[in-house]
């Protein structure tokens, strides 16, 4: 049965997301009109999602190197050396567009894709994280999306068997039409057992492994490279369907196979499926690839070459195997009940040849498919920096405690327990620090080492000042790892922005990247993997610029770490870092005063480093009982979180006279931590900070069952808890009524 292929018309080219110029460039490259299958292949390789055509030029300058970096960007995931012959393999990736259309499946396949990236490199996944952004709570679609995405992330990770240990959830009306689902996976491998995607050797078999190919996800990557319009609902068929069970089998089979030494190269089939994985393996290895699609295991009948090349069916892998070990490899896959098919071989022609039912459906130069993808230096506008907001112009609240209770019960700052209790965060028995702290800590095997893991970004800062926002996202990641006692090692970035063809959006992208780059250099915190998601825009309305940073740090001995809960009454509460009462772009300004304006707090990277190194030293010396970094909501929200985590209150000195008290309590100055210590230890810490030039002040003492601000204001932990814990469950329960 042969299906007649459509003629190539300008409309067909446009519907593949290629501009007329891009199409002409492709024709010139191959010297003729492409076939229908070839058009599909090039559309898959040259879309924004796969080619990074708008972002590549700016990504080049990012700091990606350090002595401990084994593999930077460009492979399935980044790899860093964590000592003792072990490597940490990690990456974050977005699944924004599909999750908006079909939240459960969009989220599951986002998690599945990133787990696959990690175990493709030979690592066993040990932790999953995520960063989610939804529209305004009152938007009619938000509940449905929260419910579906959270169930999807849990549904996949719980079944696959990896603990989901940390993440963040935020709400803003600018995500009404484009939610963000950024998933991160972290794995552990032996440094001598890392697998790469470059094929070697001519005539070696290319083997297809995993689930069968169906018609799901065709053009998924193309969808993710365009804005949404009012007809986006119709794109539901481009969303893939996840099968965590198949992925778990694939994991076990791949790791078992890797042990045998038969794997020469391996690449998972993610965006643009068979096309992207085959081209990448060949091009990276300087080899040609010939595929015979008759051998591809198909789930549906009558699939065409075009469909097979573009399917984004999940839980599939492509490997180049040592031909001498093929039988052994096949036996392992059969044992796990997975498909194993030789679908092609490597060649010395540097051509990408696809055959189906005796016909050559595509014959393209393999290197040019990637290397010659369009590269755009899109015009961008330097963002206008807003004026600094004078804190004395911001109205004082009725009372600071009144403002506090509103903030701890606000959508962004309320407890996310409803979310993370749907994720199995305890499986594998190594979760030393569970969700709800500054960073998760996952012990490596039986210890003593562990990983400190977090995801961070403050989109409203990035919107107001992309450079400062970019710096802050990295600094807060670094600070969160520090606050649990970890030594920050490296990051993965997930850059979510609107339409890059608009100079203002491109300006946000360029600015954020500059800030990220500066902070990564200053903090010795290289970027080892990442993902760019553009066109997060619906009918001309873009999301807030959201460059999510996922950070990994090393805890040398997991028995020596810090948590945010106050430990006992009578400890001295110390504030590390400078407090200027910065209210511009603060949560207080937005959620209490109802204003979104001003410049975001400046990030002094030298101060970040100095204050953070000081705090980490205190933790390692066992001198502090509780540690918390300060971010959204400022000092008083931070203190409330420490009280809520323990049930122990605190009595705090009045705000200093030189600042409006609400600016002192709710300002979001950076590079700050709260630590607690016994009275004797506190004296020594104060003296040591003075010597080290670290700003530090005593602000009170722990004890009681309330937070007391000076003599006049107090609020019970019970009242705080009610506000903090009830918002999200109440909001979600209202969906049923």
């Amino acid at each position, binding site marked *: 049965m042969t299906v007649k292929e459509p003629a190539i018309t300008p409309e067909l080219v446009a519907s593949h997301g290629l501009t007329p110029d891009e199409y002409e460039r492709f024709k010139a490259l191959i010297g003729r009109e492409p076939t229908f299958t070839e058009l599909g292949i090039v559309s898959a390789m040259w879309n924004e999602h796969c080619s990074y055509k708008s972002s590549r030029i700016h990504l080049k300058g990012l700091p990606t190197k350090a002595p401990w970096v084994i593999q930077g960007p460009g492979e399935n995931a980044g790899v860093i050396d964590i000592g003792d012959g072990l490597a940490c393999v990690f990456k974050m990736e977005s699944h924004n567009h599909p999750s908006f259309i079909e939240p459960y499946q969009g989220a599951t396949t986002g998690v599945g894709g990133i787990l696959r990236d990690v175990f493709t490199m030979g690592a066993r996944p040990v932790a999953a994280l995520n960063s989610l952004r939804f529209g305004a709570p009152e938007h009619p679609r938000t509940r449905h999306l929260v419910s579906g995405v959270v169930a999807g992330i849990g549904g996949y990770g719980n079944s*696959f068997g990896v603990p989901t240990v940390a993440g963040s959830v935020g709400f803003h009306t600018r995500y009404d039409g484009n939610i963000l689902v950024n998933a991160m996976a972290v794995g552990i491998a032996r440094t001598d057992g890392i697998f790469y995607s470059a094929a070697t050797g001519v005539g070696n078999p290319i083997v297809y492994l995993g689930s069968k190919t169906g018609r799901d996800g065709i053009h998924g990557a193309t969808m993710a490279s365009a804005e949404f319009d009012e007809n986006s609902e119709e794109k539901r068929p481009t969303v893939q369907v996840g099968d965590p*069970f198949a992925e778990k089998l694939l994991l076990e089979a791949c790791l078992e196979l890797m042990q045998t030494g038969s794997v020469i190269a391996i690449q998972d089939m993610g965006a643009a499926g068979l096309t992207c994985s085959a081209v990448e393996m060949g091009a990276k290895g300087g080899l040609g690839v010939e595929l015979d699609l008759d051998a591809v295991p198909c789930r549906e009948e009558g699939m065409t070459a075009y469909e097979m090349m573009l399917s984004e069916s999940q839980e599939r892998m492509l490997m180049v195997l040592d031909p001498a070990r093929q039988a052994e490899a096949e036996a392992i896959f059969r044992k796990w009940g997975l498909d194993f098919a030789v679908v092609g071989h490597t060649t010395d022609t540097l051509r990408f040849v696809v055959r189906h039912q005796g016909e050559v459906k595509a014959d393209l130069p393999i290197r040019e498919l990637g290397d010659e993808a369009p590269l755009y230096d899109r015009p961008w506008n330097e963002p206008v920096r807003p004026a600094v907001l004078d804190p004395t112009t911001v109205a004082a609240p009725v009372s600071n405690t009144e403002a506090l209770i509103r903030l701890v019960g606000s959508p962004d700052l309320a407890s996310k327990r409803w979310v993370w209790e749907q994720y199995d965060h305890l*499986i594998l028995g190594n979760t030393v620090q569970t969700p709800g702290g500054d960073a998760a800590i996952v012990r490596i095997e039986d210890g003593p080492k562990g990983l400190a893991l977090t995801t961070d970004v403050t989109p409203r800062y990035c919107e107001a000042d992309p450079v400062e926002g970019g710096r802050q996202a990295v600094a807060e990641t670094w600070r969160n790892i520090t606050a649990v006692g970890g030594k920050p090692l490296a990051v993965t970035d997930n850059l979510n922005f609107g339409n890059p063809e608009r100079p203002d959006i491109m300006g946000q992208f360029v600015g954020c990247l500059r800030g990220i780059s500066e902070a990564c250099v200053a903090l010795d915190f290289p970027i080892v993997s990442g993902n760019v998601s553009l066109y997060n825009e619906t009918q001309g309305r873009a999301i807030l610029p959201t460059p999510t940073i996922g950070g990994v740090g090393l805890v040398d001995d997991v028995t020596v770490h810090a948590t945010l809960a106050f430990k006992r009454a009578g400890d001295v509460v110390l504030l590390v870092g400078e407090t200027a009462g910065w209210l511009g772009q603060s949560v207080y300004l937005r959620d209490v005063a109802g204003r979104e304006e001003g410049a975001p707090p400046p990030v002094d990277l030298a101060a970040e480093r100095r204050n953070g190194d000081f705090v980490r030293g205190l933790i390692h010396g066992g001198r502090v009982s509780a540690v918390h970094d300060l971010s959204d909501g400022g000092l008083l929200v931070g203190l409330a979180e420490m009280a809520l985590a323990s049930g122990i209150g605190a009595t705090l000195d009045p705000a200093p006279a030189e600042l409006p008290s609400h600016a002192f309590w709710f300002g979001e100055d950076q590079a700050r931590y709260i630590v607690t210590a016994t009275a004797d230890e506190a004296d020594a810490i104060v003296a040591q900070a003075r010597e080290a030039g670290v700003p530090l002040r005593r602000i009170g003492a722990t004890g009681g069952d309330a937070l007391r601000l000076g003599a006049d204001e107090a609020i019970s932990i019970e009242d705080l808890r009610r506000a903090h814990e009830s918002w999200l469950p109440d909001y979600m329960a209202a969906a049923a009524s």
Partner: protein
Amino acid sequence: MKAAVIVFPGSNREGDVARALKQAGADVTTVWHADTELPPGTDLAVLPGGFSYGDYLRCGAIAGRASVMDAVRAHAARGGLVLGICNGFQILCESGLLPGVLMRNAGLHFICRRQFLRVERNDTAFTRAYAAGQAIDVAIAHGEGNYVADEETLARLEGDGRVAFRYADRDGAVTPAANPNGSLNNIAGIYSEKLNVLGLMPHPENLIDDLVGGTDGRGLFQSLLAA
């Protein structure tokens, strides 16, 4: 103590339970679902947590009919010890080794959290290291742990003292508020008639370490080692 941990496709807490057994001093081997026999000398067969066969039919339904389950049933019939945790409990119910069924949680969500249990009796091979009535702090992680049985079965389980653990508060009080999933009579785990088969939804194997939440789960494995 020779323990055989059965691995089904989709099992995912086999390593966790093996770790707990080894910590208690057991000699642990793993057995593949397609095998037809347990290793000679097996004292304890363990069905671990996970999503066997993806749980794409009813939870545990396909695993309950796997080749290895004939061997597990024979082992139980000989009086051998069998422990099923979470998905393992579901498999025991599906394989006919324990009565009743685990339905979807009353709240319809997967729940992972710390959970207190009341130990109903301490004169079995699984609980002798605990005190009767003791509240232990372990964890749950399941979407389908809502234990349901017909009235007659429930009356028999209660009458014969076959309820092993109940969801409780920190003081051991069995209350509706302490019931995370809607299980009848707050049932978290039950025994077979001869008390040699135990199925429970919670995960004692994840509470064996002071650094990772606590050690209240150890008692179950220490009890088995003393058996």
